[in-house]
């Protein structure tokens, strides 16, 4: 028997997927914030029972449990991390507090970034009184301009210890080029506070965790990692103990925001933040490969937010190299995903005569007006109810009854009357606006991040509200095909099982490859460059060996980030192997860079006369694991007609008005069937809304495709 568990602990639900002998079984339970393990075991019990095997037996047989958790995210939001001290270069003690003078806007929506009159910096993770400077300075070439004094370090460490810090982060300027001072500070602390004594202080040296240029980003990378280590580690160790007590025999694996997984002993706390949406992108990539699509916009529309990710040309994922986590900019290769403040709970209102939707949300409590839990503001879900897309008696498979009268009243009071239109028109405008904004945000993300044309992409619609609005936001995104999946409500958990073991190693490495004024390819420093790559590969070998892989079974790739002379924009260029050899090798890499640059910015923008530089090396080590493969399904006597459950009156815009729209049961439809819109397909977890001008098609795997047949018909 082959058996793996994937788990995704979210804010509302904990999802577990059990992959048994190639078949998926879902489990969903409430997230138990008082102890996240409880929710996990509840969901895992449901999934394993659906797989026909008791939980203990399943755990004993399991080859892996892959876990994606928000424990770090919650601790960060609530500022519940470890009390840390920071030692940095004297004169630069405000680097973290000031955050490049832009950190008051980092992580905020555009309108807030432009509102500098109300600018406020985020609450810091380290009290400014626990930031100390030591006299030292190393320049960008690694030369020691001011040496470090041991007594200065000792005095500052003692100051921090006296104030009760539980860990010390050390970030000195240019340590990524020359770490001698950071190492010495680490050694001094180690000498005076050795591990054998109680109260030993963990020390986090920035060059070890993030050997990259940019003292603010490097500081925040190390600080967040150190800040969350204790709380994350504690939770995962306890979970590991519990699953082992119930029979599990393998390491606990965690999903990482870098797009892979690793065992707990090879993971950093920072990499666990946002791991679920990152995993979702990889899961979409995996499914995409199985069904033959390589460019995917991944969308997940829930109650309060709308998450978007991209898969570009198969496995070439889109990374953010300096993402914002919470309100802080860090430097890790983060599988890019973006959150937009729009969801089923987004509140509609009229301001200055103009309709606005979101970004504030009614959440799940009180929730939309139709939830009948005290909410009086109209939301996107209320508009969906009024438009007839959601059946109030059949919401979430009939588990929750909605009050349509309250939806009508809320929309009437807050939108229809202020705008002087009917309630239906008001609901329609809410839908148009939220779909338009979401679609255009997707367009922006697609084009902004990777320079891609959204028309070359298909859209994957996840989340409870995803399939309801997918055709609408696809229009705004300029996409004509949307895929929906029967397991889309647990796609995050499913996606953890699509991850490979991954370790990534990065470091800043400055190297001129092409000299601008002499127009020569330079080879003088290649030996040093190749030695650095070899050293990184050795680290990869060590870590992958711990994960059970040797170099024969590990995929290693090296990307070099390159730019024209003194430029800040860098493009990653993949090496053929692990070395650059001779002038010919340099020329090949430079040619590849010029070509990539021209493709992205136009031929006229290329400027090799300025010289070509390498800035950064990234080595990724991938240990492949077995994954779910969708299989073709038979029809076993079902027909389109047999899946018809009746009709609902639904409003499809002023051009169509109210139409008696056929309603099908999604899971009863045959494969390879096509139905023209307008049509509604009800399911336990969502409604698939297919407007006029679109059709619904089920492929051989049973996946549903909403496809445009005529532009702008709705």
């Amino acid at each position: 028997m082959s058996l793996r568990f994937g788990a995704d602990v979210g804010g509302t639900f904990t999802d577990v997927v059990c992959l048994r002998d190639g078949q998926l079984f879902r489990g969903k339970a409430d997230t138990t914030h008082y102890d996240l393990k409880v929710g996990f075991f509840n969901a895992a019990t449901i999934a394993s029972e659906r797989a026909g095997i008791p939980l203990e037996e399943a755990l004993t047989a399991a080859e892996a449990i892959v876990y994606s958790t928000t424990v770090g995210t919650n601790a960060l939001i609530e500022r519940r991390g470890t009390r840390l001290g920071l030692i940095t270069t004297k004169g630069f003690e405000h680097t973290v507090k000031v955050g490049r003078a832009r950190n008051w806007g980092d992580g905020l929506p555009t309108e807030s970034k432009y509102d500098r009159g109300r600018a406020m910096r985020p609450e810091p993770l380290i009290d400014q009184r626990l930031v100390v400077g030591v006299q030292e300075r190393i320049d960008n070439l690694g030369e020691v301009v001011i040496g470090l004094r041991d007594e200065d370090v000792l005095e500052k460490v003692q100051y921090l210890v006296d104030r009760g810090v539980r860990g010390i982060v050390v970030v000195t300027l240019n340590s990524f080029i020359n770490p001698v001072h950071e190492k010495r500070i680490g050694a001094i602390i180690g000498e005076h506070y050795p591990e054998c004594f109680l109260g030993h202080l963990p020390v986090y040296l920035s060059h070890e965790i993030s050997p990259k240029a940019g003292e603010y980003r490097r500081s925040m990378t190390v600080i967040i990692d150190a800040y969350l280590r204790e709380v994350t580690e504690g939770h995962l160790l306890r979970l590991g103990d519990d699953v082992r007590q119930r029979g599990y025999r393998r390491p606990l694996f965690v999903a990482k925001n870098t797009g892979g997984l690793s065992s707990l002993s090879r993971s950093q706390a920072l990499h666990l933040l946002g791991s679920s949406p990152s995993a979702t992108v990889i899961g979409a990539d995996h499914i995409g490969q199985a069904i033959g699509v390589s460019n995917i916009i991944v969308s997940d529309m829930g109650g309060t937010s709308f998450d978007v990710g991209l898969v570009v040309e198969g496995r070439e994922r889109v990374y953010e190299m300096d993402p914002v986590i919470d309100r802080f900019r860090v430097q890790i290769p983060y599988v890019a995903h973006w959150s937009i403040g729009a969801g089923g709970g987004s509140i509609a209102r009229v301001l200055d005569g103009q309709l606005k939707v979101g970004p504030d949300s009614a959440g799940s409590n009180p929730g939309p007006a139709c939830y009948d839990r005290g909410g009086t503001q109209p939301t996107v879900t209320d508009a969906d109810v009024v438009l007839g897309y959601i059946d109030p008696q059949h919401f979430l498979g009939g588990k929750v009854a909605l009050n349509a009268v309250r939806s009508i009243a809320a929309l009437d009071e807050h939108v229809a009357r202020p705008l002087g239109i009917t309630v239906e028109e008001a609901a329609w405008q809410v839908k148009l606006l939220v779909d338009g904004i979401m679609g255009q945000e997707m367009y922006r993300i697609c084009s902004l991040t990777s320079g891609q044309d959204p028309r070359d992409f298909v859209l994957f619609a996840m989340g409870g509200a995803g399939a309801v609005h997918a055709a609408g936001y696809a229009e705004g995104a300029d996409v004509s095909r949307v895929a929906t999946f029967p397991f889309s409500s647990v796609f995050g958990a499913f996606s953890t099982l699509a991850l490979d073991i991954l370790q990534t190693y990065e470091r800043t490495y400055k190297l001129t490859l092409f000299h601008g004024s002499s127009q020569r390819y330079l080879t003088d420093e290649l030996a040093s460059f190749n030695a650095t790559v070899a050293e990184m590969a050795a680290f990869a070998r060590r870590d992958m060996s711990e994960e059970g892989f040797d170099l024969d079974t590990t995929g290693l790739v090296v990307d070099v980030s390159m730019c024209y002379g003194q430029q800040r924009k860098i493009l990653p260029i993949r090496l053929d192997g692990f070395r650059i050899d001779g002038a010919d090798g340099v020329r090949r890499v430079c040619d590849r860079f010029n070509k990539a640059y021209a493709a992205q910015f136009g031929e006229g923008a290329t400027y090799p006369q300025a010289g070509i530089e390498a800035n950064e090396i990234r080595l990724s080590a991938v240990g492949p694991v077995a994954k779910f493969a969708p299989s073709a399904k038979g029809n076993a006597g079902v027909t389109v007609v047999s899946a018809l459950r009746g009709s609902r009156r639904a409003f499809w815009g002023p051009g169509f008005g109210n139409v008696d729209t056929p309603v099908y049961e999604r899971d009863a439809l045959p494969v390879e069937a096509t139905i023209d819109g307008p049509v509604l397909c009800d399911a336990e977890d969502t409604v698939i809304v297919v407007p006029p001008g679109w059709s619904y098609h089920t492929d051989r795997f049973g996946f549903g495709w909403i496809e445009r047949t005529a532009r702008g018909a709705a």
Partner: protein
Amino acid sequence: MERTVRRRSALFDKHVRLFEGFVYERDAYDKRPGCDPELICHGLEPFTEIERRGMERLTPIDVELLTHKLSAIVEEARDVYMSLSISEGIITGDMNCGLFTASGDPVTVGTGIYFHTLLNNAQLKYINKYYRDDPTVGLSDGDIYFFNDELSGGVHCMDMFTAMPIFWNGELVAWAECGGHQGETGSITPGGFAPTAKSRYDEGLHIPCMRIGENFVLRRDILDFMTGAVRNGFVFEADLRSRVATMLLIRNRFLRELERKGVDYVLGGMRQILVDGERNARTRLREINDGIFRSVLFNDDHGTFFGLTRVPLTLIKEGDELAVLIQGVSPECSSGPFNSSWHLTRAATAVYLFSYFFRGYLPANAGLLEPVSYYVEGPSLMNSSAELAHGLANQVCAFATQNLYMAGAKMLYSSPHRTAVQAPQSRHYSLPIFAGVNRRGYLSMNYTGAANAGGGGARYDMDGENALGFYWGPWTDAGEIEEQDDRMPQLALARQLDTNFHGYGKYRGGTPLLEVSVFQGHHECSMSSWGSCDKITMNFGLFGGYAGPPNPRFVIRDTDLLEQIRAGKDLNLGQYALLTERGLKGEYILSSSSKDTEVFHDGDVVVASVGAGGGYGDVLDREPALVLRDLHEKLITKDVAEKIYGVALDPETQLVDEAETERLRSAIRKTRLELGRPFDAFIADWLCQKPDPEILEHYGASYPEPQVPGYAKPFWGLYD
């Protein structure tokens, strides 16, 4: 003498006099090659037929979605432009990208710098009017135009822009544009800013409007001319190429939108965005009490020398219109580059209006300023003639902005928009421009990212933010020292928030990032600098708050700084500590901020910041706990806590001693009452005082209010 002016409002007509011999509503120079002042002050161009047609079709939702889309396009362009450029100014956000109507009005911008939004459009109108049908020039798809002449509608010649027309089925439908502070211009001073320039001809390259590329490609002959005309042709060309890439991106995205939505829809929507901007601005104005609101500013230098000048500003607000009157201004300056233009003075006010007064209305565009009329007396310091040098125009125009913060706060306090009430963000400058070979062997000339870390003004309900950003931009980036080390020739030894360097108040102003640099090693380096407010502040305090302190240029020559540190001395490199402790060997030089190029040597130290914000409200109303926090964060010393805030600490616990604090504060209040004087007595005494005539050389013909015969009005009052 007095002349009739177009009626604006009853208040305006009653209380304002305009005079013959001055211009008020346009630049104070005539048409010249490549520059037409009539186009500059034109306002929005009339609706076109296609725009009108499109507007009829559009619903408000369509407009909102189009606004979102166009904003996304220019913001993407901004990010790309900042990433591809290598000029420090552009990398850190002193730039702008925009989409303009075919007739040249700015619709949406990715910023960057707000005042660029309202500039750099007259050039497009000039091309449309004079070049498009000229067979020797013409206008075609793929053309690339360049402009940097302040007289054609720009800021100063360091700010360089390019524009690309966008055609659809052979018709001009829009313009893509981008540019920013590139720096070096081939002026008499390396790095562009020439503080000793006396005419525009000392300031290097001036191009009013020139086609530099065709078929989306830059012309090699013109590139050679341009890169040969400046000291760092390498940077110049790299940045020009980044602009081409950026404009192409805007163009391609925009064309796709036309393809998707149709030309009527998009062009009509662009016009509607401008119309909506105007409508929003009028709505905001109607919500504010009518009245006349004033502020006056005194400036203390003229570039490289000290000298007093005066700039008053009066707002006349009635109904949904606002008039900005700048009158009684000191004359223009022929001894230095210390002159603004009408269009720049107007555009500078956008920084305040867009960020605060019209807070919440996005996108910021020309429509927002339609209900605002500008009367800037010229020729004067604020609206000068053509032949003068204008390099520091960006400093001069800020006088209007600082005044506007003050007058605007008075307007908004009793309105529903009190959240926008605050003391001005710092506009003090002592900005060094370093020039030399950096440690990686590249020639480098520019200022550093610390220019983007000025202190914010205190707000009516909270402190001003420290190191808030660049004065002209809503959200900018000060970068990181490790990148700066890689690009610049000098070496920063400190970059920190300084002590006792902000405006005190119930809510305090924000402190800037102070950068302390040393020259060391074998790398040659020279430095010029520019700025003002060396003795008199223009970072006003509001409603009783202290002003942000002045900050002159501070250099210490031939120090033993590195030797002392290497010998184990734990030096505090804050400005306050350096000046009060004087612990370094060497010559301490406090001087006018603007200075021409000087060579610097090993051990020389430069201390610079872009100033601190003013405070809000009475210092004695500040919560003692906030004073204690400032003390803990070393933003103030114990001396300031006691003497300014009247907060005493328990010597043992170092916590607030409440009883002693109350006693201290009572004593301060008593002293204040003893020093108080009736207004008439104060004014009578004040008018008897006069500064040294030497520093009044550029002040104007009469004191205290520069005025022409027949202009007489009381210094503190208005015409009845």
